[in-house]
């Protein structure tokens, strides 16, 4: 199988290099290398969005967790609709704000809108987490998959460095446009292969394990039921919840953390650099909520049951190889391509955003276009070097750090909501929320727990206490702090600047809410959906279709009740996202904004300090000694 797998991966690599080369050749301005001239085609946003969503979940991990925990973990697939909802609420407004202010990144937008350098630094931290540990974790997985599929003929280290080198070449030749093409093409491939393997295993394997025995989970784990609304356990590492980890609260809060993908600096950059009209809505509704979530909900359990029956992912691949080596190669390609999407996208967007936000703003201000391109290439080399090194030599550290990524990214939600919709959310509120929320995230994830317990004393709780994901702990405290502080500081000095942007929103693309009743119905339905699909109401799905409440009998439907419940709420979820994105016009861009606004007036260095006061004070303290 080794020569066949290497050949197929080689063909995909050659296609990536070809796409990068043609986009590099057609680049009109050197500066377009960093942001593709803010004119990525809609299809890139459409396909790449779905692919990045699947890749951020880490497809191999998702299948393995599904094989371990059964259908209770399938709630996470329903949670993909949260990404679409989050994108529907924020993506268009971020795009508009970028066009109105001529800024290109979320960090610049939030930094200028709230007038806060701290927010810029926080965004760079989140960007760093996505670009290096998260990408390294995915790269390390890809290396392990290739190594296992070739029976170590291609060692993991060699696979990691080869994949990293090819992706680096594609990025450094094609720039942001080349990266976006590569990610979109591979996303389409992953979606097609996912659908294909769903059907193929159904037709070729003698008896589907899912149809015969369901998902064969470990003893003590409920394979086709959610183990309660919430469990008062101390958390992973201290005390495991009975019946499995994925209570409704765990599913809901994990789904919330997935929203962090939609407001991550990289995903926002993809949206800002595209030139869509209906592309955003199509991507959110039909690709992320529809196809990506649907394939995971329907096909994930089938593949996971086979993996559980085979014993491991490698054993399942070997079983596929007995049918035909090409089948096993296709399955390995599916998993490796999903990892490649994450690596290429997060490393590439990280380098571009870093060049715009850090290099050309603070390190070498006033660079011309050629220098900017050179700086972006150097940043790409550094990022890929770091990613490959971490993936090869410190995969465990990469996993520990990357566990923080989505949760910390989600802590930006109040800030992004402030930018997009709620003008009275103030800088002080956002910063107070970020500090409190991030502390909660760190101390309910393995990174903070291990660090604190090694340095000081044992904490009474473990990871995700009370079966609530770290993003849930963070968001609850973050929103509380943000709203409380914003109540008292909503009319502070920087309110003018915030009003200026929101007035421009109203002028260029007013939100079309329809009647009051329609607005109430829309948001009430969304909350109801969240309650029943992911929240405490999902517990009803355990027996709703197998033991109907009023019938008093057991109905043998042949499919677990929970799966029917998940499919039902997937349909409802797609409908809600469609309603919000298209009918509510949350994601349809009618026309480009006609005027520009300036959020921060040019600083006159004679009268005002150029650097932020607290940074200046810090520097004074160091240099004054």
């Amino acid at each position, binding site marked *: 199988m080794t020569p066949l797998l290497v050949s*197929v991966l080689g063909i995909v690599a050659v296609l990536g290099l070809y*796409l990068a080369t043609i986009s590099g050749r*057609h680049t009109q301005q050197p500066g377009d290398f960093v942001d593709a001239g803010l004119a990525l*085609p809609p299809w890139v946003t459409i396909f790449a969005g779905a692919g990045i969503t699947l890749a951020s979940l880490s497809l191999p991990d998702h299948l393995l967790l599904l094989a371990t925990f059964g259908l209770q973990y399938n709630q996470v697939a329903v949670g993909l609709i949260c990404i679409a909802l989050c994108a529907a609420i924020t993506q268009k407004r971020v795009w508009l704000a970028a066009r109105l202010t001529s800024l290109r990144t979320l960090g610049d937008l939030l930094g200028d809108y709230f007038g806060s350098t701290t927010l810029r630094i926080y965004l760079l931290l989140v960007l760093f987490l996505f670009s290096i540990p998260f990408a390294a974790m995915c790269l390390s997985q890809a290396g392990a998959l290739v190594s296992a599929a070739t029976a170590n003929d291609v060692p993991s280290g060699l696979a990691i460095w080869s994949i990293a080198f090819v992706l680096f070449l594609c990025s450094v030749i094609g720039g942001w446009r080349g990266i976006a093409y590569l990610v979109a*093409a591979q996303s389409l*491939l992953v*979606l097609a292969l996912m659908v*294909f393997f769903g059907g193929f295993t159904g037709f070729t394997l003698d008896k589907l394990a899912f149809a015969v025995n369901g998902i064969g989970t470990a003893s003590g784990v409920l394979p086709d039921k959610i183990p309660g609304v919430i469990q008062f356990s101390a958390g992973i590492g201290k005390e495991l919840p009975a019946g499995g980890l994925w209570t409704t609260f765990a599913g809901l809060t994990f789904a919330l953390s997935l929203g962090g993908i939609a407001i991550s600096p990289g995903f926002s950059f993809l949206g800002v650099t595209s030139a869509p009209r209906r592309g955003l809505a199509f991507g959110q509704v039909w690709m992320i909520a529809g196809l990506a979530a649907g394939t995971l909900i329907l096909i994930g359990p089938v593949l996971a049951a086979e993996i559980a029956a085979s014993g491991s992912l490698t054993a399942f691949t070997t079983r596929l190889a007995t049918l*035909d080596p090409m*089948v096993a190669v296709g399955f390995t390609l599916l998993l490796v391509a999903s990892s490649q999407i994450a690596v290429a996208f997060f490393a590439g967007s990280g380098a571009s955003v870093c060049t715009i936000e850090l290099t050309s703003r603070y390190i070498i201000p006033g660079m011309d276009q050629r220098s900017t391109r050179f700086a972006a290439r150097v940043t790409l080399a550094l990022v890929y070097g770091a990613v490959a090194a971490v993936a090869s030599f410190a995969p465990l550290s990469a996993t520990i750090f990357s566990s923080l990524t989505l949760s910390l990214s989600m802590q930006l939600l109040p800030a992004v909501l402030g930018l997009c919709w709620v003008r009275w959310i103030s800088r002080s509120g956002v910063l107070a929320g970020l500090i409190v929320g991030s502390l909660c995230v760190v101390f309910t994830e393995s990174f903070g727990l291990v660090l604190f317990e090694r340095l000081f004393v044992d904490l009474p709780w473990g990871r995700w206490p009370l079966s609530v994901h770290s993003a849930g702990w963070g968001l609850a405290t973050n929103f509380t702090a943000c709203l409380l502080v914003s109540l008292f500081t909503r009319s502070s000095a920087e309110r003018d600047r915030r009003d200026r942007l929101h007035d421009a929103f109203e002028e260029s693309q007013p939100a079309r809410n329809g009647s009051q009743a329609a607005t109430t119905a829309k948001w009430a339905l969304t909350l109801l959906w969240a309650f029943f699909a992911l929240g405490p109401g999902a517990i009803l799905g355990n027996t709703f279709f197998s033991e109907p409440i009023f019938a008093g009998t057991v109905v043998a439907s042949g499919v677990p009740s929970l799966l029917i419940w998940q499919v039902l709420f997937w349909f409802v979820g797609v409908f809600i996202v469609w309603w919000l994105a298209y009918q509510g016009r949350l994601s349809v861009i009618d026309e480009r904004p006609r005027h520009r606004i300036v959020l921060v007036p040019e600083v006159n260095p004679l009268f005002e300090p150029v650097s932020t006061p607290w940074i200046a004070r810090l520097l004074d303290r160091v240099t004054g000694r």
Partner: protein
Amino acid sequence: MTPLGKNEALDRHALVMACWLAAAMPAAILFEYGFGRGGTPYILAGFAAILAGFVAHVIVNVVYGTGFSPRELGLGLVIYGLALVLFVVLSLVSASFAAHNFLPLSIGFITTGAVVVFYLITRYGARQAFAAFDVIRDFRSRSPGDHI
């Protein structure tokens, strides 16, 4: 049809490549499995995957308001022709190959050709579709002094 700008042409080309990559990989798996243990249904499914790629290409053309470029037409015809020749040669050389795969491959090639002809007729009309391949008329229409 308005000619595409530089960026649009590039976007269209990249999208076409992406569509064919997504169709070709499942098709390759289906053909490989079909020639081995799978048999007729999987070979036909492989052709279905190729036709799905063709349909995706047509949709891309409609979205961008273009037709097939001469290079795409040429490449398509060459691949189709080579596959057909390979099929005929293998059928003549290997009796077992012919016994197992002649029928599904014949159906597949005929269907693929029929779908392409159907597309040409619905897109251009019977007369124009024929004129595109009418080399003799094209040759006669050149004046004697024309250089090729």
